[in-house]
C-alpha cells in the first residue's frame, strides 16, 4: 500500500452503525495498518454510494459491505482483499 487506507462507515447513527465502526477500528488495530476510519452520517453522502441498506463499509471509495455488520475477522479479510488490489 502506498498511502494510508481510507475507510468510511456509512450510516445515520443507528446501533448497527456504531457496532460496525467499533469493529472496524478493532480490525485496523489488529492488522496494524495505517488507515483512517471516518463516519459518514450525512444522508445525501450515504445515498451517493448507492446502498439501500445501512450500515455500509467503504474502503478507498469502494463499497465492500452493506446492510449487515460483519465480524472483526470478516472486516480484516475485506481490508486485506482491498489492499491487495492497490
Amino acid at each position, binding site marked *: 500500500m502506498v498511502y494510508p487506507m481510507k475507510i468510511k462507515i456509512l450510516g*445515520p447513527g*443507528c446501533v*448497527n452503525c456504531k457496532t460496525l465502526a467499533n469493529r472496524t477500528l478493532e480490525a485496523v488495530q489488529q492488522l496494524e495498518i495505517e488507515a483512517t476510519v471516518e463516519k459518514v452520517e450525512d*444522508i*445525501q453522502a*450515504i*445515498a*451517493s*454510494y*448507492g*446502498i*439501500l*441498506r*445501512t450500515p455500509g463499509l467503504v474502503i478507498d471509495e469502494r*463499497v*465492500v*459491505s*452493506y*446492510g449487515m455488520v460483519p465480524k472483526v475477522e470478516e472486516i480484516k479479510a475485506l481490508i486485506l482483499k482491498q489492499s491487495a488490489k492497490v
Partner: protein
Amino acid sequence: MNLKPSRLAVLFVAAWIIVYFALEPATISFVSLLSLPPDSRLTEAIRFFVYEAPKVLLLLTIVVFVVGIIRSYFSPERTRQILGKRSLFLGNILASMLGIVTPFCSCSAVPLFIGFVETGIPLGVTFSFLIAAPMINEVAVVLLFGLFGWKTALIYVTTGLAIAISSGFVIGRLRVERFVEEWVYTVKSQNLTLDSNPTFDDRVRAGFVAVRDIVSKVWVYVLIGIGVGAGVHGYVPENFLAGIMGKSAWWSVPVSVLIGVPLYSNAAGIIPIVHALLEKGASLGTALAFMMSVIGLSLPEMIILRKVLKLPLILIFVVVVAVGIIIVGYLFNFIY
C-alpha cells in the same frame, strides 16, 4: 465438533417439535405442582401466563427461523430490480407483497427510498412497499396466530396488504412528485456489484442469525405483554371496555387510530395489549385498527422520512394510510 448449519437445523427443528408437544402436559403438571387456590383471580392470571408465554415464544422462534431463511432469497436490491418499471396498480400489488418478505429495517427507510426513486420506481409503488414492510411481519403474524387463531392472523395479513396496495395507489394518483425534496432526484449513485452466491448452509445460518437477533430483542416485550394480558385476564372485569371500544361506540375506530398513529411499538409490544382490549369487550375492528396504526405509522418513522419528503407529502401519507385503517376497522365491526 463443528456441525454444518443444515444438520444443526435438522436437530433444531426436531428438538423444537419435541418441546412443543411436551409443553402442554409440562405446563399442566407445573401448575398443579404450585397447588394454587382454585378459582382465585391470581390462579387465573398465573395459569394464563404459564400456558401462553412458552407457547408464544416457541412459535416465535420457529417462524423467525423459517422466515430468516426465506428472506435470504430476497433483498432490497432484487426487489428494486423486480419493481423497476412496473405500472402503477400491478406495481402496488407486487411492492406490497415484496414488502412482507424483503428484509427491511425502518432505519434504512431513507436510503431505500432514494434508491427506489433513482431506479424510476413510481412513488406510489415505493409507498406501497414502505407501508407493507413494517406493518406486516412475521412477529405480528405469529403473535396473532398464537393468541387469537389463524383466522385473525389471516385477516390481519390480507387487510394489511389491501391497505398497502390501495394507499400506495392513491398516493401515486395524487401526483406528489413535487413534494419530494429536490436533491433526491439528483442523486447519482455508484453501481454496486457485490456478488455473493449464498449456499443453502449460508441461508440456514441467516435463519439462526435472525432467531438470535429478533428473539433476543423481542422476548422481553412478549413476556411483559403476556404478563399485562394475564393481569387483565384475572382482574379487569369482562366487558369493561365494551362501552368505549365496543361496536356500539361508532367513534371508537377513528379515535383508536388517532391515538395509535403517533405511538410506536413493535408488533411484540402491542399485540398483548390488543389481546387485553379484545378480551375486555373491545370489538375486533377497533382493536385491529389500533394495532395497525401503532405499528404501521409512527412519529419516529415520519421524522426519518422528513429528510426526503416535504411536510405535505408526510401528511398525505399519514392521512391516506389512516383512512385506509379506519375503513378496515369499520368493515370488521360491521361484519362481526
